[in-house]
């Protein structure tokens, strides 16, 4: 006989069944454990001037524990949350790197499709960091260009992408245009100015601050005295949205190119609790191309500027910057060899005393990865960076520095 309880249970379970059939939950991630030996200075991650993610000497550490959770509805709507954890004694952290809703519509009969994202997400600039939780695919350290994207660039806002699918238009490429509006990226540019270009696998967590290296100009009586000891890249200080525009062309079985423009559209005369607004803008272009089925060429170039004024509107930090890399990756069965060369610069255009941000450098990375089993990758990677950065004298080190890092890593994807 039915009683109230069974009727209730039946309704609840019917509801649960409906929900389960309409929703799919996926959990993926990466565990990356490393041994490092570095010939460098103290890492930029702790306010040092070293360009790698680790300090001088040897260490064993958890390079990344990344988890991404995707909840998908049948309609094309999905929810994405990405968390990353780092345990290496530098600046241990666990937190959110992205969280957003995404809707991808079904193409219409002319092959046009709309997609939108709302929330916190990366602009799709990096052609390296395409693995789960924004891990780099073929190397352990990302290029200087994409290490900076992972450190200071994040969009909290909305994005709309229009795509024309080639297969429904007798074309062998898909063409996309993306426009985004975002908040909470006003101090971006500060870390690039003050520690220069760096190379690691560390992404900044939402809300996380990063120590800036010693600057003469932060001393009492100097121009940057109000600047806090840590920079917080993800603040909204001027209540003005920034924007990002991108076009992407993707050829089936061949590769892709992207090009775009980022402008955080910040006012340049605000400082709150030691955090300034920085007007940061850059153009970029990138390509990923299969030279043959197992030989992949990736190249990216970025150039831009960043400007920070004092509250009277006089320039304090005014920099141009650029970074470029070319990477070749060859797979032979379970073996993959990747080589990457880079060139980067920062040009300091202001006259601020005790704050020279100029830099010029080159980097080379060689990675060998053995795919032990489907999810398990064993890698050895050597990186070399040679850079001239006059601002190193504020830390008592010579301007010109050659740094090296050897990494051994076990990466497990699930």
């Amino acid at each position: 006989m039915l009683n109230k309880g069974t009727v209730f249970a039946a309704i609840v379970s019917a509801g649960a069944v409906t929900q389960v059939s309409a929703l799919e939950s996926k959990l993926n991630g990466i565990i990356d454990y490393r041994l490092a030996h570095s010939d460098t200075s103290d890492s930029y991650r702790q306010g040092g001037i070293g360009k790698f993610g680790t300090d001088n000497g040897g260490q064993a550490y958890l390079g990344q524990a990344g988890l991404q959770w995707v909840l998908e509805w049948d309609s094309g709507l999905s929810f994405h949350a990405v968390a990353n954890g780092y345990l290496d004694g530098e600046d241990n952290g666990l937190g959110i790197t992205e969280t957003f809703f995404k809707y991808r519509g079904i193409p219409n009969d002319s092959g046009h499709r709309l997609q939108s994202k709302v929330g916190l997400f990366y602009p799709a600039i990096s052609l390296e960091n395409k693995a789960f939780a924004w891990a780099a695919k073929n190397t352990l350290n990302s290029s200087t260009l994409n290490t900076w994207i992972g450190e200071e660039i994040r969009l909290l806002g909305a994005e709309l992408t229009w795509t024309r699918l080639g297969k429904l238009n007798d074309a062998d490429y898909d063409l996309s245009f993306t426009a985004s509006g975002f908040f909470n990226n006003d101090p971006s540019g500060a870390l690039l100015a003050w520690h220069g270009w760096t190379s690691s696998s560390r992404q900044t967590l939402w809300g996380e601050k990063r120590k800036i290296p010693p600057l003469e100009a932060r001393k009492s009586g100097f121009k940057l005295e109000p600047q806090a000891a840590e920079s917080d890249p993800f603040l909204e200080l001027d209540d003005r949205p920034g924007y990002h525009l991108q076009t992407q062309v993707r050829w089936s079985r061949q590769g892709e190119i992207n090009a775009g423009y980022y402008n955080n559209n910040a006012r340049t005369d605000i400082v709150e609790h030691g955090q300034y607004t920085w007007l940061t803008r850059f153009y970029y272009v990138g390509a990923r191309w299969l030279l043959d089925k197992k030989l992949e060429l990736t190249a990216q170039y970025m150039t831009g500027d960043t400007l920070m004024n004092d509250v009277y509107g006089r320039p304090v930090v005014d920099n141009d910057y650029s970074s470029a890399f070319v990477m070749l990756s060859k797979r032979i069965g379970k073996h993959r060899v990747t080589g990457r060369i880079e060139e980067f610069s920062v040009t300091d255009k202001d006259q601020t005393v005790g704050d020279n941000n100029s830099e010029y450098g080159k980097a080379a990375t060689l990675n060998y990865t053995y795919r032990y089993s489907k999810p398990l990758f064993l890698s050895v990677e050597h990186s070399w960076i040679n850079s001239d950065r006059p601002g190193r004298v504020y830390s008592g080190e010579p301007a010109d520095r050659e740094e090296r890092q050897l990494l051994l890593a076990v990466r497990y994807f699930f």
Partner: protein
Amino acid sequence: MSAPALAIELNVQVLSASGEPLQDMVVYAEPLDGQQLPATDKVVSVGQKGKSFAPYVSVSQAGSDVLFDNQDDITHHIYSVDSDARFSFKIKAGEQRLQRGLDQSGEVAMGCNIHDWMSGYLLLVDTPLFGKTSQAGAVSFDTPEAGRYRVTVWHPQLLADNNREAQTVDVQNGMKVTARLTSGMDETPEQESDDDFDFLSEY
């Protein structure tokens, strides 16, 4: 009541313009003399395997159900944008789905909204006499009714009007027809991602 007529076998061989047998070409025969042919009860299966439509080309009689069969260990989001047969659905790893309402004849281009490189075709025809050619380029039909038929060869990469070439055949006894195409064939696109890394964070 007359006894059912004995089936008449119609063999078709499809050859390229240069005389090579062509595999996986869709062939169908439509009656031209008002012959009454019972609708087929054949349910055609469209598989998803290795992140591709397998087979790339399928053919079914309009009005029949079509079985979608996901043999991959991931979800696909199958769609068609053709106005007469518009559909979209997610199909999880290992699931099968019977798609109804494919009542209008015509060419249905299908894709996956998660894996943009996936591309497949379903041709819906108004006759129960349909098939695809073997490696030797051959296909055969059994029809209960003699008379004239239009025998059509179709393939999405056949460089002809509407991607098809047709000829009229008067079928009396078992007979063999050669369809030597006058148009060339475009290359069949490979359904393959431009990135073979297994742990990409897309979609």
